[in-house]
């Protein structure tokens, strides 16, 4: 089916103040079409006839639909100015699933001296589903220092009014806004507001309310189904430079977005920034960016790259462009940095133009594919087998949905597909049962065994949905496992011979003058290196980050990573810190390798988290820190060691709603120029301590995320269990070969380690291994890790002690433990008949015969069983003796029973 959303782009050099129009190739219904600008956030571009500094009156211009065939333009002068954008039109049925309705086109005039204005919108049904498209403005200001009056924020308030606000007040600004309500049930709309981005980027939580700050948290589910369809920024109250009034929104976790205008660190913006996010299960968005994109100079530049994964075969009118541009520089050489762009060829051409070259320009863009926005029901698959991980031949897998599978299967089907765009290998799955909310099926992985693939579900009505799944045991690296965590984190330092931030821009460096090195001793499974701090003055550090230490509004924060001490650190040492002196997060070690996490806010609160053990030297640990402010998760800050939550803290819970900005010192080891305060500043119990760096500490795979956190299950299974290095590995192979390998560990007491034994994948699928007198120190965090997705039965034989909570299956497998035991029956009469019966739940009854012998030649009889508690009966019949019938309860330990035969005096 074709998309019911069609897109037509325009690129017009406007030379008239009010009379110029553009004729659309396809007629539209004014209630079902709107203009959106694909330029910088201030909707400005600049003259086409020169490349000199442009005043606001020749950089501002507006576009709006004025008839069923025309776009009209407005500007303040006749100077030719380029205006670029898209027209979206809805072609589907009234009240369709993908419908949007235009609620009105409005102008709001801000006269000189006025900073704010508003206008009421009529006809809105649900304001939270409305998006105010700012399609430009006219401006009378004639100074390049008046751009603070040319850039406005636009949102819909709680009373259905469009609200606009600018920083400066010079010039008369006429603002054009089209309000569109996305009424179709396939659409979801979220909004975000950033207020605290003056000196650092801010990560905000998306919300359902039109204001961006109310309602409930809005989760896009998957950013590949979501686009920033509109955004705006209130200019700074005084700064008028290039970077002060431009900005970029970017994706965060599935419920977050980040805003920054700091392509120039000296830029300032104290206004409000808004974003509006449109989500559709059938929409596909692939993104790219360029932090130093080449520009033209009053001309088109080299085309922007086509994002990886984007289709090159879809129709041009079913593609849209998500677009942001920003620039360095705080001077007034406007209109640098304002790139106007559109897709001009569906095969992969994004054309963009700029009035004037100069400075370092950043562009972020996404290609939005609308082909599958076709008016049909769009499914959302909640999960597959609860963890989106299936084995190669798993039976009875259940896929769930909030609803939409339809009650009857009909022509519906479930398929395992190699690629997300329904290409490559496609394998039909055998369906057991089908309902509107769940489908049970049996997996046939075929050529997709041990891979990452997609479950596609097609309903009888033709609706299609897909879900990424792990099939079998794919060759996943630990880094891949971490990068697949949801929500996505913002910074990731693997420390694999590099200081690089693999996700964000917080690449670290050696600022200590010491000699931190990359050791070739790995501390995480599959690694080759670890960062080694081996001197009391050594450290490495990362630059300040808006989503780490310089945010003043963080209510949630996590940091995690692997560490290993080479020995007991005698000095009080900093493992990792962020901030300095009075405001900081810090991981501190001392008192015999006791690890302590502190959250220190000079004016707000102070919390310490403790762990119940002292870290064992030369033994890697996974550490997870989580900050929760008042109102978030009960305000309880927490720490986990090897995925196990701490049990003791002091000062918990957090008593204020945020954690303050704490710039400086994102460092591994202690950045020694400043002491670190320990203790609660609000009382009389604190001191600045000249901490040392740990001697010696290894580091790997540090992760930072703000305004979100991970579940205990994610931390234990994804972060810890997948990364723990095993003391012994039983390589995958045949069951016999693996048993032989495990037999070599008989009688071994495994020492303290994150993981004692790793068991690979058996060629047989389900398999059984017997452990012969294998035991583990209490501090072993994971006794057995099974890497497969089938069922491993462990037989804990001959003194083997297994702790069920320390048996791990991070790749979807199952471990079943049998704890066999032997009942030895003594005092048997030679040549007697001995029988052992299950009482089948009825005391004293001779139920199922479990074992026995017709004529025994020994006075003892060993009966081996699986160790499960069970009531049995032992029967002995011997000539010359009375019959014996003794009930007995089996247990998981070896037992003995002595018979006392009585001579049959009546025989």
């Amino acid at each position, binding site marked *: 089916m074709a998309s019911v959303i069609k897109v037509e782009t325009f690129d017009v050099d406007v030379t008239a103040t009010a009379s110029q129009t553009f004729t659309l190739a396809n007629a539209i219904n004014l209630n079902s079409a709107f203009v959106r600008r694909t330029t910088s956030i201030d909707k400005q571009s600049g003259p086409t006839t020169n490349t000199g500094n442009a005043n606001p009156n020749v950089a501002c211009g507006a576009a709006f639909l004025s008839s069923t065939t025309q776009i009209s333009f407005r500007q303040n002068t006749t100077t030719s100015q380029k205006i670029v954008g898209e027209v979206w039109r809805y072609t589907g049925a009234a009240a369709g699933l993908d419908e949007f309705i235009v609620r009105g086109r409005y102008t709001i005039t801000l006269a000189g001296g006025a900073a704010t204005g508003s206008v009421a919108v009529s006809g809105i049904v649900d304001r939270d589903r409305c998006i105010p498209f700012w399609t430009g403005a006219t401006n009378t200001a004639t100074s390049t220092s008046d751009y603070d009056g040319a850039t406005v924020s636009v949102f819909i308030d709680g009373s259905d009014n469009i609200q606009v606000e600018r920083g400066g007040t010079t010039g008369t600004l006429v603002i054009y806004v089209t309000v569109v309500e996305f009424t179709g049930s396939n659409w979801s709309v979220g909004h975000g507001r950033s207020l605290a981005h003056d000196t650092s980027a801010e990560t905000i939580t998306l919300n359902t309310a039109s204001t961006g700050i109310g309602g409930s948290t809005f989760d896009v589910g998957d950013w590949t189904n979501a686009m920033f369809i509109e955004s705006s920024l209130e200019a700074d109250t005084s700064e008028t430079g290039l970077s002060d009034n431009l900005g970029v929104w970017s994706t965060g976790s599935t419920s977050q977005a980040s805003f920054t205008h700091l392509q120039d660190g000296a830029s300032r913006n104290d206004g409000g920034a808004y974003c509006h996010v449109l989500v559709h299960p059938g929409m596909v968005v692939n993104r790219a960016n360029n932090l130093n994109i080449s520009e033209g100079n009053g001309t088109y530049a080299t085309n922007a790259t086509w994002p990886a994964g984007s289709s090159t075969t879809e129709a041009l009118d079913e593609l849209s462009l998500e677009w942001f541009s920003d620039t360095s520089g705080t001077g007034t050489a406007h209109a640098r940095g304002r790139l106007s762009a559109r897709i001009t060829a569906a095969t992969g051409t994004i054309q963009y133009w700029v009035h004037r070259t100069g400075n370092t320009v950043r562009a972020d863009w996404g290609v939005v594919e609308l082909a599958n926005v076709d008016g049909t029901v769009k499914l959302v698959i909640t999960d597959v087998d609860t963890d989106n991980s299936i084995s190669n031949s798993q039976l009875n897998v259940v896929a769930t949905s909030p609803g939409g599978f339809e009650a009857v299967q009909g022509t519906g089907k479930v398929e395992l597909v190699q690629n997300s765009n329904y290409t490559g290998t496609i394998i039909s799955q055998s369906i057991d049962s089908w309902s509107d909310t769940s489908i049970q099926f049996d997996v046939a992985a075929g050529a997709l065994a041990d891979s990452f693939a997609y479950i596609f579900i097609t309903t009888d009505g033709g609706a299609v949905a897909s879900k990424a799944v792990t099939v079998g045991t794919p060759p996943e690296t630990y880094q891949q496992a971490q990068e697949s965590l949801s929500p996505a984190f913002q910074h990731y330092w693997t420390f694999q011979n590099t200081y690089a931030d693999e996700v964000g821009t917080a690449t670290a460096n050696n600022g200590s003058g010491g000699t931190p090195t990359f050791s070739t001793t790995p501390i995480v499974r599959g690694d080759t290196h670890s960062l080694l701090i081996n001197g009391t003055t050594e450290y490495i550090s990362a630059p300040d980050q808006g989503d780490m230490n310089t945010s003043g509004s963080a209510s949630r924060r996590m940091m995690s990573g692997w560490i290993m001490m080479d020995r007991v650190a005698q000095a009080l040492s900093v493992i990792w810190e962020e901030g300095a002196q009075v405001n900081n997060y810090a991981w501190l070690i001392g008192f*015999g390798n006791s690890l302590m996490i502190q959250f220190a806010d000079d004016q707000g609160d102070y919390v310490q988290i*403790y762990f119940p053990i002292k870290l064992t030297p030369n033994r890697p640990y996974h550490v997870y820190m989580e900050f929760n402010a008042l109102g978030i998760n009960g305000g309880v800050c927490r720490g986990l060691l090897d995925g196990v939550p701490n049990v003791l803290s002091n000062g918990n819970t957090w008593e204020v709603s945020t954690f303050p900005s704490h710039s400086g010192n994102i460092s591994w080891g202690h950045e020694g120029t400043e002491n670190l305060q320990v203790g609660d500043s609000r009382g009389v119990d604190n*001191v600045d301590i000249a901490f040392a760096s740990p001697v010696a500490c290894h580091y790997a795979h540090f992760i930072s995320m703000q305004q979100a956190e991970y579940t205990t299950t994610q931390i234990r299974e994804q972060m810890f269990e997948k990364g723990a290095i095993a003391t012994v590995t039983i390589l995958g192979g045949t069951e016999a070969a693996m048993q032989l390998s495990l037999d070599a560990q008989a009688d071994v007491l495994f020492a303290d380690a994150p993981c004692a034994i790793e068991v690979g994948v058996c060629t047989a699928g389900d398999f059984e291994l017997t452990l012969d007198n294998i035991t583990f120190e209490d501090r072993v965090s994971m006794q057995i890790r099974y890497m497969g997705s089938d069922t491993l039965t462990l037989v804990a034989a001959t003194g083997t002690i297994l702790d069920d909570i320390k048996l791990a299956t991070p790749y979807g497998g199952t471990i079943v433990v049998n704890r066999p035991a032997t009942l030895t029956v003594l005092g048997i009469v030679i040549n007697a008949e001995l029988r052992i019966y299950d009482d089948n739940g009825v005391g004293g009854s001779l139920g199922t015969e479990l074992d026995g012998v017709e004529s025994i030649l020994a006075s003892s009889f060993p009966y081996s069983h699986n160790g499960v508690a069970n009531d049995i009966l032992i029967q002995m019949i011997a000539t010359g003796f*009375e019959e014996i019938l003794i009930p007995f309860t089996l247990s998981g330990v070896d037992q003995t029973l002595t018979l006392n035969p009585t001579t049959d005096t009546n025989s």
Partner: protein
Amino acid sequence: MTYPTDIDALGPAARYPLNVDANDAIAALNGTNSGGVFTGPNLCLDTAGSWTTNGITDRITLPTSTLINNAAQSRKAVCGWFSTTGLQNPPKSIYGEGDATQAFRFILGWGNSLMFEVDSDSFTLQIFGDIDLVANRPYHLAMVFEGNGFGNELRAYLDGVEQLSAEPVNRQPGVATLAARSVGEFGDPAGVVGVGGVAVIILAPINGNYAQWAMFDGADAVLTGAEIREELFEKGAIPTVTITDQAGLDALASTVRVNSPLCILVNVVGSISLTADNVTFDPLASIHVQYNGTGILTWTNENGSNASIGSTTSTGSISFVNPAILSVTGLIAGGEFRIYDNETVNGNNLDTELGGIETLPGTTFNYAHDGVANDVVIQLMADGFEELTQTITLGPSNKTVQIFPIAESNE
């Protein structure tokens, strides 16, 4: 004898009761109190009150003395009672001598983790407490230094139990003496101090309570583990409750005795037998039962009671008995039932009769025993049923055995 005289019998160079002032009870090496108050709770026997640091700058400064700090010492010991009212956020100094490079110090931090540290030019020795100190619970701390002319080791004790987790592991100074140090201070050190070789500022505990701290020098400082446990700890521990008879113990039935230095004192001169009814103890309690008499205390743990850590402060002794019950069910009312010790090796003999009844009033028989592992033989004789014997192994846990008598078919 009182607890102070028990301490003095070990020959301390100085002893600071710290309950009314900072004075030395031995040699007039009187300390100077700055900020603290003598209004703290009782921490140990025969000592009413304690010194409290209720501010982070509170301290008692000891005079310089060759017996304590102002001389190279080949042997040195310091011990005393301490408690704190909460988790300490910044690191705290309980007691210390020395500065940034030379130290003999008890330190608390990171969740009330305890650290004993002795530093000199050539070594930094640290011993770490096995447990973290619990608020409002008195502890006895002791540290003994011996240079390589003697034991060549540093030892530390918590409630008389030696703490062995250390860095370096061997705890050996490797030199003859501990160099002279600046004066001893309870609470806040006046200047920076060395912790693990790094100069830091640490504070007085909030709130720290102190009593009966003693300084030992020379041969007297070589305190044995038994002296520290029995003389310095056990004889000073304040009981949570004192009983004198069975009624007193019965009043504690079905209670969990809290974490404390000493849970129950049996204050009886002669021998006595007591039976505890479901009296259990916090795993971190240091002494479960203390007996100050001269006879034998026979303590029977009934109904889940689990006393096991005993202490005697006189010439008496304690015998812990852990009885259990064998319940035999499925018996024939009116039958005869016997339990015999299986004293021979073949498991088929009716030896010493341990219990039984001529005529069973019902179908169950309970046999209480002392919980010691033992094989017994049970015997049932009842009209209309074949005689039944069965061997059962007794142990410290209660056990129920159901039997199924077989009707005599030859009658």
